[in-house]
């Protein structure tokens, strides 16, 4: 099946209904990351950061990858992702990835779509509506 894409096409919405503190613990273990703000509430409180663990930046980036590759046809479709980290995502946040096609082109025989991407906090207490990751992605279209 060919993926329909033209400049201005909006990709299907991709949402994370509630960011899980438990997933952050697994990610910390996978990364061997000792940074306690991702899993220890006592540390967060001592730093004056409240009581909601902070999601790892790579997980936020991963949600964007999920959104564009789901549309393009699978995890093998990502060619390039460039992002800037703009803010923190906290446990319990409801997130949404929005992506829009900015170009459709051919390169080395492959049909590519360039997209603007943004990960934003929909709601969940604090930072609602804020973009926390923004950037561009390129995927191979089927």
């Amino acid at each position: 099946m060919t993926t329909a894409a033209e400049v201005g096409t909006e990709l299907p919405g991709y949402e994370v209904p509630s960011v899980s503190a438990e997933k952050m613990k697994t990610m910390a273990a996978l990364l061997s990351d000792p940074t306690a703000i991702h899993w220890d509430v006592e540390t967060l409180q001592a730093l004056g950061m409240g009581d909601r663990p902070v999601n790892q930046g790579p997980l936020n980036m991963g949600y964007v990858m999920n959104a564009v590759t789901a549309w393009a046809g699978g995890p093998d479709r990502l060619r390039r992702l460039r992002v800037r980290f703009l803010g923190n995502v906290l446990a319990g946040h409801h997130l949404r990835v929005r992506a829009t096609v900015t170009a459709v082109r051919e390169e080395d025989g492959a049909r590519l779509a360039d997209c603007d991407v943004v990960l934003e906090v929909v709601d969940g207490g604090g930072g609602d509506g804020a973009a926390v990751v923004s950037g561009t992605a390129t995927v191979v279209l089927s």
Partner: protein
Amino acid sequence: MGFAEADLDGQVGRAFPGGTYTVSPWRAWLLADTVLAEPPSLRAGGDQVAHPLFAWMAATGAMGITWDELFAWFGATAADGPVFGEHETTLHRPLRVGASYRVSGGIVSAQRKVGRRTGAFDIVGYSMDLHEIASGAAPGAHVATCWNSIVFPRRDA
């Protein structure tokens, strides 16, 4: 004493020790589940694509130094509050479950800036390349490039 602006240039071009990273099936399953993607089957045989986030996982997991050591190259510690700035992954081919990759790279840029609100800070760019290992299915193939920047606050600059 703070890290001098003149010392930044001396770090550009410094290479990481590098290393090798294997996308173990158990790790591929857990990472996909953690990032809310469909995990690869542990029971199916044959070739399976790993989540693209593994390009970053492999690059940083096998650069050959710890985060604390990287911060120390720039006279900083985790307590100074270094943060991720930007990231770029370029994939020349998908990473595969069970495959191993050779990681190489180093510091590619370092620049001091001063913001009206933030004060002085350094932006350090580092880049790693992933190549399939010599005994892999595509020996030596360039699989991915991972570029990142870290922002070091320089409150005493």
